[in-house]
């Protein structure tokens, strides 16, 4: 193995090498740790590196492999978004509020992936409390997009996506409340999957909006996402919203046969407001699927337009309740020399939270406050049902729904920072999927001026398999997912 050859390799390819004993997990782990050391100063994708712990885990993996014992991720180095609690390892959620927070337990996702033999290299940068679409709200600084260092990687799982694109790890975890896996996957040329709400346990994931949050994988290929999804999923007694539904082996069930698959194209996603270049790439990817036997069907999601307004009531409202726990008393940042308890609350929160987080807490508090609850929160929950019903009606005609993942490619730093609403529009094609609790995947669909574009595939509840199959077929017939950024001048 030459060291450079593993950077950008898929999980399944690395798995084969491990099983053939052409590389050991310790060698892999050392190599990826070196890669992080060489590139992170420029990219800032990783907040915390766990070298010692990773090498220990890798030694155990090698011992297991030598005994012929394999789990689905045995020996594979991964990174977790810094929103997943990791026992004994600082978990910041991208916030000053949790700068020194060391959790006493692992998130269920972390436990499950560890049990499958994954090696945790460290924790990825992210927008503060997952609120943002550019990774610019992180207290730990912006993350650079490996495809163009002047551009954002997307967000909120921006560090996770940049890490895979830069070859720091073949697989990372992310979370997606309104598009935070799919949009950065799109902007960094990767495959990212937001599972059905309830598929993956939320225990130990620092809460943003509890009825929308889901964790999922970001990797190079749909095949790798399939491997990771089975490892992450399943009912958890610690999360009463985790679904009591069997978890298939998504990987062994992968099937490129999509003859007769009905793909719905919402008119509302392909209307005149869609960027022409994005439309071209998405339509070209759809044409490939059509060649493979899929049938494209125009459909209507007539209330799509309301998704953004609905989301920006529900998500901030739930966030304002979830973030009430940060009071400077039990854990997290505490202001210096508080004069009384009220002062302690006020200053710990104002000093500990950044601007976007405070804005969403204010909006959410307003929407839930006396006199406005019915006009905003209740109303938004009603519209949420109307939007969800649109999807269910559409799924009577089609098997999956396709559209763009994001309105454009990665944009320069600062471009959307002045007007919060301009940033919120980044998730215009992804938000509704969270409101309806559906699985959604973004896969590479080509490039515009050298920057990646994604196609989004949306499935019925708990039918991740069909969107994984469709993306896998696309990746069998095209090679957009094989492209890697050059990282010129970045690595020694």
């Amino acid at each position, binding site marked *: 193995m030459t060291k450079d050859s593993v950077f950008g390799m898929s999980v399944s390819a690395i798995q084969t090498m491990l099983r053939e004993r052409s590389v050991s997990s310790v060698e892999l782990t050392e190599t990826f740790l070196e890669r992080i050391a060489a590139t992170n100063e420029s990219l800032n994708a990783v907040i915390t590196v766990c070298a010692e712990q990773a090498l220990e885990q890798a030694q155990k993996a090698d011992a297991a492999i030598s005994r012929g014992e394999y789990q689905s991720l045995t020996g594979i180095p991964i990174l977790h978004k810094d929103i997943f609690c990791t026992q004994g390892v600082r978990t910041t959620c991208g916030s000053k509020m949790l700068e020194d*927070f060391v959790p*006493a*337990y692992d998130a269920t996702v972390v436990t499950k992936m560890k049990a499958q033999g994954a090696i945790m290299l460290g924790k990825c940068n992210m927008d503060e409390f997952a609120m943002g679409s550019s990774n610019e709200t992180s207290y730990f600084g912006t993350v650079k997009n490996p495809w163009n260092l002047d551009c954002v990687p997307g967000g909120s799982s921006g560090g996770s996506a940049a890490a895979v694109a830069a070859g720091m790890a073949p697989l990372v975890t992310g979370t997606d409340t309104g598009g935070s896996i799919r949009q950065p996957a799109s902007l960094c040329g990767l495959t990212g999957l937001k599972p059905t709400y*309830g598929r993956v346990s939320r225990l130990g994931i620092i809460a943003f909006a509890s*009825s929308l949050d889901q964790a999922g994988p970001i990797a190079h290929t749909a095949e790798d996402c399939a491997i990771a999804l089975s490892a992450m999923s399943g009912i958890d*007694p610690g999360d*009463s*919203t985790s679904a009591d539904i069997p978890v298939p082996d998504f990987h062994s069930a992968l099937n490129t046969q999509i003859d007769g698959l009905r793909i719905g194209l919402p008119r509302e996603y392909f209307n005149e407001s869609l960027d022409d270049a994005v439309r071209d790439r998405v339509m070209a990817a759809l044409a490939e699927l059509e060649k493979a036997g899929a049938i494209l069907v125009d459909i209507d999601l007539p*209330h799509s337009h*309301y998704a*953004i*307004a609905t989301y*920006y009531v529900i998500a901030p409202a739930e966030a*304002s309740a979830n973030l*009430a726990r940060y*009071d*400077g*008393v*039990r*854990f*997290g*940042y*505490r202001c210096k020399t508080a*004069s*009384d*308890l009220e*002062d*302690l609350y*006020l*200053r710990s*929160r*104002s000093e500990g*939270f950044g601007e976007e987080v*405070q804005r969403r*807490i*204010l*909006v959410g*508090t*307003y*929407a839930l*406050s006396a006199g406005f609850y019915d*006009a*905003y929160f*209740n*109303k*938004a*929950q*009603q*519209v*949420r*049902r*109307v939007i*969800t019903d649109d999807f269910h009606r559409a799924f009577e005609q089609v098997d999956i729904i396709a559209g763009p993942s994001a309105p454009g490619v990665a944009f320069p730093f600062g471009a959307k920072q002045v*007007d*919060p*609403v301009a940033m*919120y529009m980044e998730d215009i094609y992804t938000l509704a999927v969270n409101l*309806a*609790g559906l699985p959604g995947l973004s896969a590479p669909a080509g490039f515009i001026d050298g920057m990646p574009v994604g196609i989004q595939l949306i499935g019925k*509840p708990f039918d991740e398999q069909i969107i994984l199959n469709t993306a896998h077929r696309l990746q069998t017939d095209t090679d957009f997912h094989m492209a890697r950024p050059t990282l010129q001048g970045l690595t020694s």
Partner: protein
Amino acid sequence: MSVTPSDIEKVALLARLAIAETDLPDVTERFSRVLSLVNELNTIDTDGVIPMSNPHDMEQRLREDRVAHPSDREALMASAPAQQDGYFLVPKVID
């Protein structure tokens, strides 16, 4: 519906956030932009629609009522910014 700086101050107090006087105009202006975005909800008729509080209209699953593994109190308390004898310390509340 538009908001004034004094509305923002009231909401901020409810949320236990202190907004500096100098930041108030900017905070109000950006808050208003978000509010005009969400005010679009007023243009759709939802009479009779049952509010949806979670995606699959899930029923709350109850666990069996039995003693489970206790949390590690010491490990959890270790995250507290100030503590003594297993209690969280806060500024004096009663004189």
